[in-house]
């Protein structure tokens, strides 16, 4: 029998440490307290702040970040600090989807997701089985993938609606597709590209972007897996203590591999959407999302030490990032000042979170 609750609740903490109710609230709802505080500030920023369109704008702007963060949360939850290969997984999935969209949207999305799954699987095997440091390995993987994309496309970018004979001599699958399909040049790319680029311009009820719906679905699925399944429990145990997990009969390697696969699959979905927005596949698409995702996750109260936090908190962290940017722009604050204020808020949230965890006896927070 696994003692998951014991690990989580800090039952081994010294008896002198009493749980403070504020600490419990700060630990569980810290990010939402901050969001509540920012709502009050936002009310002074603009009369339109509480409008539905403003909130839709905020959520829409962080949709891609939300997809990435949901996946990376699995990696952090299982105690592996982060997935630095996210930017290039997004980029490579984007170019693969542009290559495959010649045969329709479904092959394009499936191909991108499969690419992400393969990369995640490699990351997971190396980190889980060989116990290589996750940050170093995923960083190395990011460099390798970047080199591959640049080499493969000779430093150029790929457009969904344009291809010449030379286009089919570059890329990952295009030369193979060209040699196997003699009619590939006859495919109406403009029509296919309309469908692909339309991914980022599809709205439900005329206003809710498809990518926001996808982000919410991804978050919901990740929440379910992390909180309601045996795999989620195993992640928690492995995240709390890898060795304890192994000794408890959990196949920690598989658990870690699964976490990296989820991370890469989410990143590849995000890659498809960001490529659709940009209407171009290129190596630089997705840059910066690794650090942004980790920031959102930590803001959401997930511990870098692993085993603590929730997807609801991650959603809060992602929303908080969008909210900060929104309010500061509404106040007319410049980009540099925005960065400083965002950094200060980050420090405050992390400090409050860490302090409350220590008060609760989780001194490795």
């Amino acid at each position, binding site marked *: 029998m696994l003692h998951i609750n014991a690990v989580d609740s800090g039952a081994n903490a010294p008896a002198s440490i009493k749980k403070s109710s504020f600490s419990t609230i700060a630990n569980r709802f810290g990010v939402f307290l901050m969001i509540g505080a920012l709502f009050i500030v936002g009310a002074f*920023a*603009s009369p*339109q*702040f509480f*409008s539905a*369109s*403003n909130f*839709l*704008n*905020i959520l*829409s*702007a*962080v*949709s*891609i*970040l939300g997809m990435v963060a949901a996946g990376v949360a699995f990696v952090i939850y299982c105690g592996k600090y982060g997935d630095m290969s996210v930017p290039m997984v997004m980029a490579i999935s984007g170019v693969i989807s542009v290559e495959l969209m010649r045969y329709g949207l479904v092959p394009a999305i499936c191909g991108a997701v499969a690419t992400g799954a393969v990369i995640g699987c490699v990351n997971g095997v*190396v980190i889980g*089985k*060989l116990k290589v440091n996750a940050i170093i390995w995923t960083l*190395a993987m990011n460099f*390798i993938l970047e*080199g*591959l994309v*640049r*080499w493969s496309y*000779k*430093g*150029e*970018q790929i*457009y969904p*609606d*344009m291809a010449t004979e030379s286009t089919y001599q570059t890329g990952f699958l295009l030369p193979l597709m060209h040699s196997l399909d003699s009619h590939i040049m006859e495919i109406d790319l403009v029509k296919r590209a309309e469908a692909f680029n339309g991914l*980022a*311009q599809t*709205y439900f009820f005329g*206003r809710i*972007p498809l990518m926001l719906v996808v982000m919410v679905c991804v978050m919901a699925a990740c929440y379910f897996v992390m909180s309601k399944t045996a795999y989620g429990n195993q992640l928690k145990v492995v995240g709390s203590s890898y060795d304890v997990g192994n000794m408890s009969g959990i196949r920690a390697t598989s658990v870690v591999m699964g976490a990296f696969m989820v991370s890469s699959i989410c990143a590849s979905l995000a890659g498809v959407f*960001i490529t659709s*927005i*940009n*209407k*171009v596949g*290129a*190596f*630089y698409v997705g*840059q*910066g999302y690794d650090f942004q995702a980790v920031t959102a996750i930590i803001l959401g109260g997930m511990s870098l030490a692993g085993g603590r936090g929730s997807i609801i908190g991650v959603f809060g962290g992602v929303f908080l990032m*969008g909210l900060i*940017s*929104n309010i500061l*722009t*509404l106040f*007319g604050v*410049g*980009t*540099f000042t925005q960065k400083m204020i965002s950094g200060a808020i980050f420090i405050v949230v992390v400090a409050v979170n860490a302090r409350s965890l220590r008060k609760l006896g989780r001194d490795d927070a």
Partner: protein
Amino acid sequence: MKKKLFLIAALCIVMAATMSLAACSGGGQEEAPADDTATTEEPAATDTTDEPAATESNLDASKALMASLESVKGSDGQPLLIYGEAREVPEKPADPDALPEDDPLKYWNIEYAGRQTEKAEEIKSPADGCIGKKIIAIGQSEHPYWTAVFNGAKTAADALQMELTTWNPNGDLNQQNQLIDKAIAEKPDIIMLSPLDAKASAQQFKKIYDAGIPAIAYNMVPSDEAMRYVLALTAPDDFGQFKKLGEYVAEAVGGKAGVCYMTHLPGGSPYFARYSNVRAFYAENYPDMKYLDHQSPGFEAPKAKQVVADWITKYGDQLNVIVLSDDSAQAEGCAQAIREAGRDDIKVVAAGNSKVGMDLVKSGGLFAITYQSAEADGAIAVRAAAEYFNGETLEPCYYLPQAIITKDNVADYEPAQW
């Protein structure tokens, strides 16, 4: 244990193979000489013949190639070599930096860099022809615009039978400085440098000058001090282009609008040319083009989208014009925010001209963009180098032509170079 070792070994081999593959290709970073046969054989031929006669024949052949270069076309079917006119230089203020933000002369040192600079003693041209001369071109980043710049430079170098090597510092100033040291160590005949930072450029060009190697500044305007050590500057006239673009959109809205600006990376000359310059231009010529806000969200569509959505929320009907520094990611994000808000009345202008930007002009997502031939950006620098080796006197600055691309004339500029 054995299994684990085998796995590690296998992974190392795969990584090493991938890296060497990428390194060999250079990812577009380093290119082979333009034409090995032509570039290596010509100088060898001069060594074995009577020297003055060989010099003369090389010079004559070089001049003939220069003439034929005029007919070479770029990948868009337009002439590869295109030049614009240099604008008149106003009198330099005593202390431009002390002037207020909205004074057009505040940016004199960047806008007119090199135009009136007293040059250091010029490194004497061998005047023996450009054929076989080795150029090292140091760029800025791996952006597709730069791929097109180097394509243009390579086309020109091929046509002139010069040997061109291109290096990219990936947007890192330290790496660019290291590449300059490496280039000096290789002793090329000339170095072409696109400085990442205007302030750091004086030191960079001085170092090249002190090593006895002539240099050309291209693509990006260096500081006026740096121009002392530079044979010539070849670049787009970003300031002139954006004055023109600003004027075009101001006339379209009757000279009265609320304007927001999305800037380039702060510090570089495009930041000043595409934001400060337009703002100052409006303050002087169109006082009713009111400044509302400026932000620097970088070149990422979702961030640009959020900024524009926030502007629309904050300024509502006051916002009528948006000036962007980029017609790709910034423009896509901006167009999406405007579409979602149903604010088709907002006129958006941007620096161009990528394929994405020209598509947006056609679809109405962008009102106008500037014309900037990336291939010409690289090619005119190579031509200036060739002129130097042919013993001709160089102008201090060569600019790309200025033009505005709108829905009416966008077809004339297709296909896009990048």
